[in-house]
């Protein structure tokens, strides 16, 4: 890389969101450069499950937004140059508490009205489809268009496609400073030289606040840690991916009746995803422990125990490995897809558990914002200004050990 270069726009971050932003900008003809300090999917996007979901939003604007974002994956599957293990087999929302059934049924009606392909299985139907399911599970609300994919392959595919459309991709390039001139963004300083540009898009997940701080812009995102357990390879344990309804409750910090104190403390909710290689990914947990990504045995145990409550046969399987990651969380469960009070500085971050799901739509909207167009779908409620003008940054939390 020469010591000085120019770009129409610079995207910071090579995860699912950053590579998607670079991809859509390039497809829309913008001279874009993507800067990633490590390799693609280096941070959060390789420590997550690859779900593209609509199950975890109540009917409403955001639900339709997620659905629109999901449809883009069906398109991207056709043009991306990398097979990203796209599996559109649907995801089931499992109910193990009678008191949740009413809400889930209302959700079913609401989603159906919004045009979702949803089906409701009662206990018998669920047992028929999934013989290994636990006897305590009462019903399953299926989101038939929800899908799973391999997030790392997605990131590589998006970066490759961006490059094919003229983008410059710079992995192993660390941002050291952001520049401003005459009240607007003017450049990105990296450890490999200066990139002069009038547009910078921060898609650096949990690292976004430190990028914003370089220009005095506070971005209220904090790291929320999550664990995933990977089992040995088998086939025939289960037909598709499932999530417990309690996942939605833990996401919003609400209590559940039928969990152990550790499950409650660590925000453990059952998520299971069979991978194409035969391993099974089991999650999840949520806690604020700073940037700590060391797997913690007590959390792993709670995740495994919760898994056994839904699929008792899991206790016969061996665990190959466990990993933890940090998701970029805002305080209201909505991402920030927004311009900022600094002209030329954009934020596409804070998706927490929906970074993979909303990566493509974030990319598409960010391209529209950078090119000065109105987004094709309303995103005003995802503006950073909803937290007030330049709101204070959030504390990161403390290490767990």
């Amino acid at each position, binding site marked *: 890389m020469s010591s000085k270069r120019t770009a129409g726009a610079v995207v910071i971050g090579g995860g699912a969101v950053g590579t998607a932003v670079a991809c859509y900008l390039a497809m829309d003809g913008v001279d874009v450069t993507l800067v990633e300090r490590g390799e693609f999917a280096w941070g959060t996007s390789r420590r997550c499950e690859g779900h593209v979901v609509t199950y975890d939003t109540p009917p409403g604007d955001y639900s339709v937004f997620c659905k629109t974002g999901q449809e883009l994956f069906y398109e991207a599957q056709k043009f991306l140059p990398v097979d990203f293990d796209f599996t559109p087999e649907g995801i089931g929302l499992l109910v193990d508490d009678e008191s949740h059934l009413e809400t889930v049924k209302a959700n079913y009606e609401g989603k159906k009205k919004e045009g979702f392909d949803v089906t409701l299985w009662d206990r018998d139907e669920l047992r028929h489809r999934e013989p290994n399911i636990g006897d305590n599970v009462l019903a399953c609300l299926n989101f038939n268009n929800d899908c799973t994919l391999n997030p790392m392959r997605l990131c590589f595919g998006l970066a490759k496609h961006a490059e094919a459309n003229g983008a410059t991709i710079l992995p192993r390039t660390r941002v050291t400073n952001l520049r401003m001139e005459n009240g607007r963004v003017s450049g990105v300083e990296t450890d490999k030289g200066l990139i002069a540009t009038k547009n910078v898009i921060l898609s650096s997940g949990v690292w976004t606040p430190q990028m914003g701080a370089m220009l005095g812009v506070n971005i209220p995102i904090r790291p929320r840690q999550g664990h995933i357990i990977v089992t040995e*390879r088998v086939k025939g344990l289960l037909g598709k991916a499932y999530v417990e309804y309690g996942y939605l409750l833990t996401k919003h910090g609400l209590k559940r009746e039928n969990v152990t104190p550790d499950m409650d403390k660590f925000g453990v909710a059952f998520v299971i995803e069979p991978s194409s290689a035969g391993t099974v990914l089991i999650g999840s947990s949520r806690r604020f422990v700073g940037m700590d990504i060391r797997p913690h045995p007590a959390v792993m145990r709670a995740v495994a125990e919760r898994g056994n409550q839904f699929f*008792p046969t899991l206790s016969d399987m061996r665990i190959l490995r466990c990993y933890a990651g940090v998701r970029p969380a805002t305080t209201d469960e909505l991402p920030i897809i927004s311009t900022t009070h600094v002209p030329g500085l954009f934020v596409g971050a804070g998706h927490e558990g929906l970074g993979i799901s909303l990566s493509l739509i974030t990319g598409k909207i960010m391209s529209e914002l950078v090119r000065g167009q109105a987004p094709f779908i309303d995103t005003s409620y995802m503006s950073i200004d909803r937290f007030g003008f330049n709101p204070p940054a959030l504390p990161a939390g403390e290490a767990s050990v």
Partner: protein
Amino acid sequence: MFKKVSASKGKIVTIYFEGQPVQTEEGMTVAAAVLDPSHGWSRTSHGGQKRGPYCQMGVCHECLMTIDGIPNQQACLTMVVEGMQVYRQDGAPDFHKENSHE
């Protein structure tokens, strides 16, 4: 390609590899027996590539085999036993309900 380091001779045992009898020595691992050039590989990945024992210390999981009817066994951590039945694995093994608590 592979040579036994120690000259000591253990008791000769017969194991069955893919149904065929194979003479080996007590104290050897199943993986070591598989490394014989005439056998070579232990399993296939889900993409169909052949995989063989690699790390020999329980880390890489490349040597997963079905041993005495139990799938996903780490051949490098399993000692040969007279009459042992060893089969290669083709992709991920089927999950059988009889393995479960029921």
